[in-house]
């Protein structure tokens, strides 16, 4: 977590952290498709497509409160958990069974958005994969606001006006390296918008364009949006909060979501003695060295 400070509080007159510089080399707001060649490694096909589309880049102002541990402290035990999650999900992705993942929770404030952001960062594999985050919680969208991104048209605009291409409203968020389709202008009837006929087309188009599509949805129990969005996703990842989410809510959520599409459950904010995670740090350092 100490790296986070260094990253987001650059030294006066100092250089930008290495990661940002690296990422800035990959894509710039005015970069053309040819600038892709600056990347050190060849990109997969979907990523190449994304690059060819010249998404604009938005600089996120990541603060410690965003808890982007995978970005700030990739060697931490918490980051390892996201790697492990990535590994489990990749198994399905490799088999072609999973691309669009709905991320939801039984109730609000279970840490769904935090998990989503960290997972998106983990899945992007430092730019090796194109990961699209769709801010589909039209009732209470927080991702863009938490990252202090400027506002631009988003999902609601695409759903209201089918002539608007959803790709036009996608921005690449740096320094994390994944793409964001924000919620857009707040509307009175978000549920009807999501359940309308335009949603399917938008989701289909987006899925074709990216390696991973992560949909941030409202909580399952109080609203039906998640159930509606589930039809566009290949699987659902349920986020529950340790010591907070009641058992009844979890059971109700799993019942509503159904066993077929539920790919797994993440128990967030588990209080454990640090040594249980730090034991893996030594081995993870070695792994990171190998990866690097």
């Amino acid at each position, binding site marked *: 977590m100490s790296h986070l400070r260094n990253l987001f509080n650059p030294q006066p007159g100092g250089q930008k952290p290495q990661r940002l510089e690296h990422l800035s080399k990959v894509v710039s707001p005015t970069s053309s498709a040819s600038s892709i060649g600056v990347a050190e490694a060849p990109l997969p096909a979907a990523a190449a497509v994304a690059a060819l589309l010249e998404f604009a880049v938005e600089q996120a102002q990541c603060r410690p409160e965003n808890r982007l*541990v995978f970005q700030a402290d990739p060697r931490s035990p918490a980051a390892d958990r996201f790697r492990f999650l990535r590994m489990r999900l990749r198994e399905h992705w490799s088999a072609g069974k999973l691309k669009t993942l709905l991320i939801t929770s039984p109730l609000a404030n279970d840490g769904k958005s935090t998990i989503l952001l*960290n997972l998106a960062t983990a899945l992007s594999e430092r730019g090796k994969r194109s990961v699209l985050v769709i801010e589909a919680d039209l009732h209470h969208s927080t991702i863009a606001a938490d990252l202090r991104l400027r506002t631009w048209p988003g999902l609601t605009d695409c759903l209201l006006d089918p002539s608007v291409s959803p790709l036009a409203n996608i921005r690449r968020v740096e320094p994390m390296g994944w793409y964001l389709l924000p919620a857009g202008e707040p509307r009175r009837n978000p549920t009807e918008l999501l359940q309308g006929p335009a949603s399917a087309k938008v989701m289909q188009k987006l899925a074709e364009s990216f390696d991973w599509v992560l949909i941030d949805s409202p909580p399952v129990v109080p609203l039906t949006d998640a159930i509606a969005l589930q039809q566009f996703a290949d699987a659902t990842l349920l986020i529950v909060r340790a*010591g907070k989410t009641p058992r009844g809510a979890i059971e109700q959520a*799993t019942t509503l979501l159904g066993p077929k599409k539920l*790919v797994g*459950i993440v128990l967030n904010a588990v209080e454990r003695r640090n040594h249980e995670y730090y034991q893996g740090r030594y081995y993870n350092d070695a792994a990171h060295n190998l990866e690097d």
Partner: protein
Amino acid sequence: MLIRRRWWILCAACGITLATIGVLLMMPNMYTSEATLVVLAQQVPQRYVVPNSTADLDSTLQAMKQEVLSRTRLLRMINDFGLYPKKRKRLAPEQLVSLMLNDIDITPLGERPQERNFDAFRISYTTDNALLAQQVTSTLTSLFINEHLRTQEEQSTNTTKFLHEQVAEKKAKLEDQERRLSEFKIQHMGELPEQEQGNLGILQGLQNQLQNTVTSLDHAQQQRMYLQSLLESHRRPAPAAGGTTMPVVAERNIPLTPLQTAQNQLSLLESERAQLYAKGRTKDHPDVTAINREITRAQELVKRLKAETPLEPEHVAGISAPAPPPTVTDDPAVAQLRSQVESNRMEIENLTKEENRLKTTINQYEGRLNQTPMREQQQAGIVRETEALRQEYSELQKKEEESQLATNLEKQQGGQQFRPVDTASLPLVPSRPKRLKLSMTGAALGLALGIALAFVMELRDTSFRSEKELKKRVTAPFVLEVPVLQTRGEERRLKLRYMLEWVAASGMAFVVLIAEYYVFKHG
């Protein structure tokens, strides 16, 4: 769980402990004064003087308590000693009495007091003033001692009085019964069983006399016949006497008439009957009864024949008529014979009277003897009742004497009594509240309550705290834990919070310890 809910436990334990200590410190000190009384048996052994009171000590003590701790006495003590000054203004007398009863304790002492086997007991009184407690206890002790003495003496006196009345009543009944027995004896004198032997003896004598009389009569009659025969030999025979049939002697060559024959038969039967009496036969004897019937028939025959036959002086049966006085011309021998006949007639008459008297008397005595069994039975019943009354009277008399002895002993204070072994003590240390013990109990209860609350909160918390728990309950392809993602600031704040918690907990524990120490020193 305990660590997670530590504040529930800590706050409950400390809060209740401090509250308990606060309440205990505010409570006034109470002092208990005690006195011990031992039960002394009577000074004279029981084989000499049997006590009137046989109630066990437990019953006696309960009775004493009812008497000494009566509403009237307690109210008087409350007024005399000025007890419960504040509560007297707002509580009713009955409530004050109830308060005082709660503060008084009477406890049996001994090896097995729970089995009502004790020989001493303790009196105690608790109040907020040590000197007052001693005074009240001393008063209660005196009351118990005096009341017991009074009760013992009164009981014994009443017992003696009651027995005396019972003795007098029984005596009257006994006298009445004896009078009844005496009247019975008087009324049935002669028929009593104790007189039976006498009656038998008399009867025997009478029967002997009768026999002798009959024999004498028989001789006299024979003598008469002889004299008449002699007289007739000188002159014509005199007519036979009436009454007792005399045999008619037939004259030479003159046959007896039917009447004469009947008279002779009658005379013979009478003679036989006299012989039977002489042998001791009673009139109820079958032989006598048979001969009486024959005599009756013979007498009827004689009467009938007399009625049919003209009267001839020389053939009339019966008592021989007196011999005519000797005429001048009679022979001196005839005169002598006539005189002898006359005397014989007189003799026969007397003997006959004697015989009748004896028979009457014999009948009378026989009647008495016949009544004797019935009288014996009647007398036995009266005697039995009399004896029973006499025995009861004797027993009551004995009891009265014993009771009187016991009463005299009580009056001299030689009976069972209470004696103080330990007089009312002056308490220097409060007997309650036991602050240290109660405060520790409060701490333990607080801790228990805290743990209970923690358990309740834990039960109410249905969330999951580990991957393992979640896997047990929910079925999913995989379950993954993600630890708490804390910022540096949150870590610092968490550490600070832990530190503050430690300080707070230590402070609370310190305060509790100080309070407990204060209670220990001053409680």
